[in-house]
């Protein structure tokens, strides 16, 4: 068989042969980790501009790093939202709850109670901070790693676990992979397993809201790896063209599955800077500083509400654990990264800040940790009375055929009868 290459290899003289570049992450398993190459500015290196500023005047925001909490755990600078203690403690509690929930559900998967789980450990500030800065009525088009939005909006934990277990109370009838929630009443769009599809959808929702003279805005999230998909760019183009009231979030947690952000273009520029080419503001934010996340989100939301259109926010953070229960990061990254991560842990940072402000102490923290853990445990216990993932015994087979269409056509009715017959043969004792 012919080898490949009916190629014209005769290079003109005096020209170097071309090469292409394959990015290489800074660290691999076993490597010593040193993040000193990251520029971590103090709070307020770039002060907060007025919301009405023109996009072209704030290019530097896309290359900086908005921070509020300094290394001394004090909040300072013009981005400090000066939230009241109640709000700070609410943030702290929601993040702790999210971490406890993730830990417990991860273990539930390991115990065989479900097929899959995906944590957001280390990224809690991203979803909780944004959800608390948005209005409860604003519409979220998240990726699979923003379960924190549901927690921030007080979605019942039991229902989340019902979904994770695909049990008989699962609001999605066991149809979806665990964690791919849908919660319209909570402003949480049905999650797809396919990356970045939610981005242009958020823009469409925002345009529709604007078309109706509504006041609600849309917000959407994707990982930095997902910015490579065409839908990311489709969304930004649409939003820029129609000045859609939409907040775009790119969660740069340093990993797609095994690949680092260099494979999404981070060697040349920031993800926030993607905004510049579209003529919209881009802000790069310390994603482990919940006050910075809140503040940047509110800035972008205010712009959208003032009919000043879309903003892109990059949340710079670190995926502290595996991509999902199907992944083992020790084979592609250095175990030392997590402890060396220069932006710390979002919960620890807010905790220290609250202590420094005199509104919190370690005793109360300990009590709260126990409370959230038991809150999760009792939700889990209740959900388990509705069943854990079984081989389809929790849902009647009819649920498989419902909602394909509004009305079931003849061929699905026939297939449904077939499925019911098969079940009766397979499990005569459990119709």
């Amino acid at each position, binding site marked *: 068989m012919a*080898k*490949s290459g009916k190629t014209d290899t005769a290079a003109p003289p005096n020209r170097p042969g071309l090469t292409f570049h*394959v990015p290489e992450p800074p660290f691999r398993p076993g490597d010593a980790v040193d993040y000193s190459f990251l520029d971590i500015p103090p709070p307020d290196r770039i002060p907060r501009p007025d919301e009405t500023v023109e996009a072209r005047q704030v290019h530097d925001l896309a290359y900086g790093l908005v921070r509020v909490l300094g290394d001394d755990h004090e909040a300072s600078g013009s981005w400090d939202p000066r939230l009241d203690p109640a709000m700070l403690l609410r943030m702290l509690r929601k993040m702790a709850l999210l971490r406890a929930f993730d830990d417990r559900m991860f273990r539930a998967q390991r115990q065989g109670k479900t097929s899959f789980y995906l944590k957001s450990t280390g990224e809690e500030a991203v979803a909780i901070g944004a959800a608390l800065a948005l209005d409860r009525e604003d519409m979220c088009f998240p990726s699979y790693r923003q379960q924190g939005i549901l927690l921030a909006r007080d979605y019942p934990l039991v229902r989340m676990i019902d979904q994770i277990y*695909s049990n008989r109370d699962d609001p999605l009838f066991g149809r979806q992979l665990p964690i791919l929630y849908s919660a319209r009443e909570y402003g949480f769009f049905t999650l797809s*397993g396919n990356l970045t599809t939610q981005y242009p959808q958020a823009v469409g929702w925002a345009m529709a809201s604007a078309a109706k003279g509504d006041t609600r805005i849309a917000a959407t999230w994707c990982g930095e*790896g997902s910015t490579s998909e065409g839908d990311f760019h489709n969304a930004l183009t649409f939003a820029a063209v129609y000045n859609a009231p939409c907040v775009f979030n790119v969660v740069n947690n340093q990993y*797609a599955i095994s*690949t680092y952000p260099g494979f999404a273009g981070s060697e040349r520029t920031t993800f926030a800077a993607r905004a510049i080419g579209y003529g919209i503001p881009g802000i790069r934010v310390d994603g482990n500083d919940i006050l910075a996340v809140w503040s940047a989100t509110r800035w972008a939301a205010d712009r959208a509400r003032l009919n000043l259109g879309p903003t892109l926010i990059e949340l710079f953070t670190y995926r502290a654990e595996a991509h999902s229960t199907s992944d083992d990061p020790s084979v592609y990254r250095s175990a030392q990264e997590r402890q060396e991560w220069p932006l710390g842990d979002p919960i620890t940072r807010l905790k220290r800040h609250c202590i420094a402000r005199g509104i919190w102490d370690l005793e109360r923290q300990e009590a709260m940790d126990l409370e959230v853990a038991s809150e999760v445990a009792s939700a889990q216990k209740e959900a388990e009375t509705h069943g854990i993932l079984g081989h389809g015994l929790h849902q009647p087979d009819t649920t498989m055929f419902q909602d394909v269409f509004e009305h079931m056509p003849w061929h699905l009715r026939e297939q449904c009868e077939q*499925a019911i017959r*098969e079940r009766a043969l397979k499990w005569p004792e459990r119709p």
Partner: protein
Amino acid sequence: MTASMTMTQALNSALAVMMARDDGVMVLGEDVGYFGGVFRVTAGLQEKFGKHRCFDTPITECGIIGAAIGMAAYGLRPVPEIQFADYIYPGLDQIISEAARIRYRSAGDFTCPITIRLPFGGGIFGGQTHSQSPESLFTHISGVKTVVPSNPHDAKGLLIAAIEDNDPVIFMEPKRCYNGPFDGYYDRPAKSWAGHPDAEVDEGYYRVPLGKARIVREGQDLTVLAYGTMVHVTRQVLAEHGIDGELIDLRTLVPLDIETIETSVKKTGRCMIVHEATRTSGFGAELSALVQERCFYHLEAPIERVTGFDTPYPHSLEWSYFPGPIRIGEALARLMRG
């Protein structure tokens, strides 16, 4: 020299053999480089051939396939991996409007020798976006070939033939069979490939030609047309029912080995088609039409199609969805009565 290999290892071996023989063979895709792929098919290739021959890509299926087409236009033989068949949809325009038509629209001025690898099929509790069998989307396109191996030996030989083929090939890997031949009984201990005759794989170069089906089991009572995982499932069901069926593993859907099919159906007079994909406009519809057109006067019973249901692939009900032993058994009974 032969060795016992899983399908994953056999595919890896095919890639390694071809990368060694031809420096225009490039492996690219999400997580295929340093990590070696989420299913481990490309494990070790980057280490062996360097990161300019086997590399990670940005997460854009459209970009991956488009870039592969460009590499092929230059004269290379790229082998892109799409992490799950379910994620190929953003790349469909590059396949349908581009890869499939480049030879035709340029009258052979440009060609597109790319092999797009797609792990497909359900049975891993993957829900609707890790379970689909989209083969009929590709068989419906003029200008791409569609190949589906069912065992390690064929997987290697077919992948080598696909890479050497001068046209675009969609190479669909039944992920439920990566580690063993799945017989449809998810509730029994999983079988491995160890000791299976089709898992004895030549460690060197060999081809299994595209467009040639394989008669897995000769028989007189009826003809079964299957591919991928369903070959193993139907084989088990035939044995359970003690039916002397002729089981044909199609191996290539386009171009189809119509001769083998026609000869068999004319001999047995009965035909059952089995696939995991949804029923309506599935590849079974095409097979059924062909058999009817060519063997009508030899048929002693209506052709049976056993398929997945016309719903998205459900998570918890996946074994109710899967065309398993009961569904196949019922169709067999109808066919043998007829």
